[in-house]
């Protein structure tokens, strides 16, 4: 039995997607165990092969990225200095993804404060460098350098978008946080990658969080209206905008305001929306689809897809999310460039069981940036692979329960 197949993990959608006799499909679901149990060679081979292949790719990629970041000629000052603190040699003792457990958990404090150049790999020293920030309402924000990663991540994400709803050549609206975040540039790149032009609304989430903390809810409402008014102006100006990024709160507000004005987001020409964050829940998706959009994509002509990610990691796309599966949202990281694991709350070195709840642990593995085992401020359920993404996913993403009361989510 290959490594990784000692647990029941096969995603139900995979069972449906493969050619099996009805009886076998039924057994596959009811057994809820590895498909190789009942001798359907085709299924077993396909599943094993996809999972194995992805895992081998991840192992090879991990060894390559770690070697790059810890080699004197290519690594960044931060990791080269950190190497002396480690009780193992990353150059020789990291041969596969599981070897990353030898590293201590990544501390986000390491990203606060400078000099920012310590994160630039020597092997990329001649490149033009961006810096993106996350947090920063109070105190020093976390900084992450980037060269091409945000473009690469969003180009890869572009491949997951259905062309019927995100037509090539269509223009975009970016209705989300701008400023020091990468999102504005990333969405603009996505639009350009798909041969469109991106209109952007300026939005400062740090000010929004301050408004909430101060209890200035009327100012918050006005600021939201200010953003929505600008978005409607763009959509009304004849720019052929068909696609958009928006945060859940802003998409909701945009739709409600359009409804108030006697129109709808569909009538404004939008056919494809992507959004993200822990506020993108199944219930919220259902509300959007059923009440704000006017039905599922085939009826309303509007397709919306959730995403999960942050400045440190790439962009995790979602599996299918519709009425048939109660709008369940399952995210899959863009392996091998990034990995999302659901780990035990008490022992983050241990994976949670399939279907069990745990904390999200992110690992970023690119030539530009190496983050081994960063504990996110989110939790969720561990999901098995699906046909499109033959590796683990996470569903039901929400703020980590021990931090949730102190966390302001979905502010913009």
């Amino acid at each position, binding site marked *: 039995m290959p490594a990784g197949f000692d647990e029941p993990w096969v995603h139900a959608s995979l069972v449906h997607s493969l050619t099996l006799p009805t009886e076998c499909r039924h057994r596959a679901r009811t057994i809820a165990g590895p498909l190789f149990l009942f001798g359907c060679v085709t299924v077993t081979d396909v599943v094993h092969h996809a999972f194995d292949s992805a895992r081998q790719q991840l192992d090879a990629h991990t060894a390559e990225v770690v070697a790059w970041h810890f080699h004197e000629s290519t690594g960044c000052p931060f990791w080269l200095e950190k190497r002396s603190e480690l009780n193992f040699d990353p150059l020789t003792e990291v041969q596969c993804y599981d070897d990353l457990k030898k590293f201590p958990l990544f501390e986000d404090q390491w990203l606060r404060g400078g000099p920012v150049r310590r994160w630039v790999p020597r092997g990329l020293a001649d490149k033009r460098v961006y810096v993106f920030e996350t947090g920063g309402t109070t105190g020093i924000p976390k900084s992450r350098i980037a060269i091409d990663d945000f473009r690469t991540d969003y180009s890869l994400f572009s491949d997951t978008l259905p062309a019927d709803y995100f037509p090539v050549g269509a223009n975009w609206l970016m209705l989300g946080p701008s400023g020091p975040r990468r999102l504005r540039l990333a969405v603009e790149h996505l639009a350009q990658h798909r041969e469109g032009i991106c209109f952007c609304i300026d939005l400062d989430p740090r000010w929004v969080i301050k408004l909430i903390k101060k*209890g200035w*809810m009327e100012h918050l409402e006005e600021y939201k209206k200010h953003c929505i008014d600008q978005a409607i102006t763009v959509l009304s100006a004849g720019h052929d905008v068909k696609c958009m990024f928006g945060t859940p709160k802003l998409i909701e507000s945009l739709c*409600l305001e359009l*409804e108030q004005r006697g129109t709808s987001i569909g009538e404004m020409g939008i056919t494809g929306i992507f959004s993200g964050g822990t506020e993108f829940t199944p*219930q919220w998706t*259902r509300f959007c689809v059923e*009440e704000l959009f006017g039905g599922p994509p085939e009826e309303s002509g509007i397709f919306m897809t959730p995403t999960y990610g942050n400045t440190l990691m790439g962009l995790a796309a979602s599996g299918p999310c519709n009425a048939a599966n109660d709008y369940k949202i399952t995210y899959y990281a863009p392996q091998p460039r990034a990995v999302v694991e659901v780990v035990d709350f008490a022992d983050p070195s241990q994976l949670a069981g399939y279907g069990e709840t745990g904390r999200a642990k992110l690992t970023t593995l690119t030539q530009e940036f190496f983050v081994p085992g960063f504990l996110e401020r989110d939790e969720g359920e561990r999901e098995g692979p699906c046909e499109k993404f033959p590796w683990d996913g996470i569903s039901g993403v929400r703020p980590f329960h021990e931090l949730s009361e102190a966390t302001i989510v979905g502010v913009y």
Partner: protein
Amino acid sequence: MITLPAIRWGEPYESLEVDSINHFHTGEPVARLHAVGAGIVRRDAKKAGHARKLLQEISPADLIARCKAAGALLESSSLSVGDSCQSPDAFIAQQSATTGMPTSMCRANLAKNAYVLQNIDKIISCLTRGLDLNILSLGYGDEGRGVTVSYQSQCDALGAVLPNNSPGVHTLWLPVIALQIGLVLKPGSSEPWTPYRVFAAMVEAGIPKEAFCLYPGSGADIGSAILSSCNRSMIFGGPQTTEQYSGNPRVQVHGPGNSKIVFGDDCVDNWERHTDMMVDSVFRNGGRSCVNCSSIYASRHAKEIAMALAEQLGPIEVLPPDDPDAGLAALTTAGAAEAIYSVVERDAKHPLVTDMTQAYGARLVSAPPVAYLRPVVLHHASQESASRNNEYMFPMVNVVECPQEDMLPTMESTLVCTAVTEDKQFQRQLIAAKNIDRLNLGPIPTPQLDWLQPHEGNLIEFLYRSRALQIQNTNSHPD
């Protein structure tokens, strides 16, 4: 276990997000609540005009009759609540199970809510100062003085963000339906019981279900949506909430009461006559209501008063919630009792403060997963004590030694003030004091509310605006 769907203008709505509320002690699930998001609240709010229109189709007299019938049903009948048929006893058991309130208090609160509904005609008559409700309904009329008066509704539906732990506050929004205004309610996360039962009783009594929305869900998200989408709302919360919405004409805030008893110099020597009144004011309803007394001011005998209160309140023990003598409610939020008690201990360590209940055993009673706080009486040797007006969610009273002339400025904001004095000048000062909301002249327990009096602002003035409306006499011949 009972399932409570969200109610969207009378229609049940099953959400994909279902919260469970559990027994405060056993942890067993008691109810499943279908939670909705802010978008649904904001979208539904656009249809509030329909709720008002339906209510306006029923005459005020008929609506009042139906509200009275609802009061009787609320107290005595089995009603269709969520997916179950709920008897009054089941309601009381469920409310006690999730809030930690003794069943005797839950029963008393049910009776209080029923009383308000059954006397809604008298209450509204007093709130309106006898105005003919047909004038409110029509928008204008003549009260018999030959002058046209006009009142304009300021909202189609009142929003109410209800508290988690105080089943006694619901009387404040009960008169709204009889005023032909709809209700948009966010039930407390541990106390959805009263709003759902009132809704059931009112519908059973013939009030259109389309006049009601009930939105369980995340406190901040739903609350904020209700406050921003209803033109008039009421919210219940702590000092931070009070401060946040203070001065906002669209929001009526109900926060800590800091209710007090003051003794005038002319009566303070007879304080012993009023010991039972003071104990009742501190202890009734578990001491967690805004109308419970949290400070007593006296120019002399303060230590004796504190000692006498401690003798009665100090020995009170925690009893099971179904014990008819139970008077203390559990603090069900993890760590809340410990956090509150640590602040009380800090107050008591001040050189001007003495804990008079120290001799009566530990105050913090742990009963995992909840905890209780037994009554505390603190004596403050001077009004200089910074904690003299502190209020907590359990029976706790500060007895403050303070000269009469210094009482009013040092009392600060006071929801209910019971003044034991015959001194006419002091009474005039109390009547004029802007930091006192409800004033009791005489030894009336602070929680003893006359329902024929307005509470924290007049609901009518909040919901209706008096404005000019002139009608041209068709027989007249203007120049």
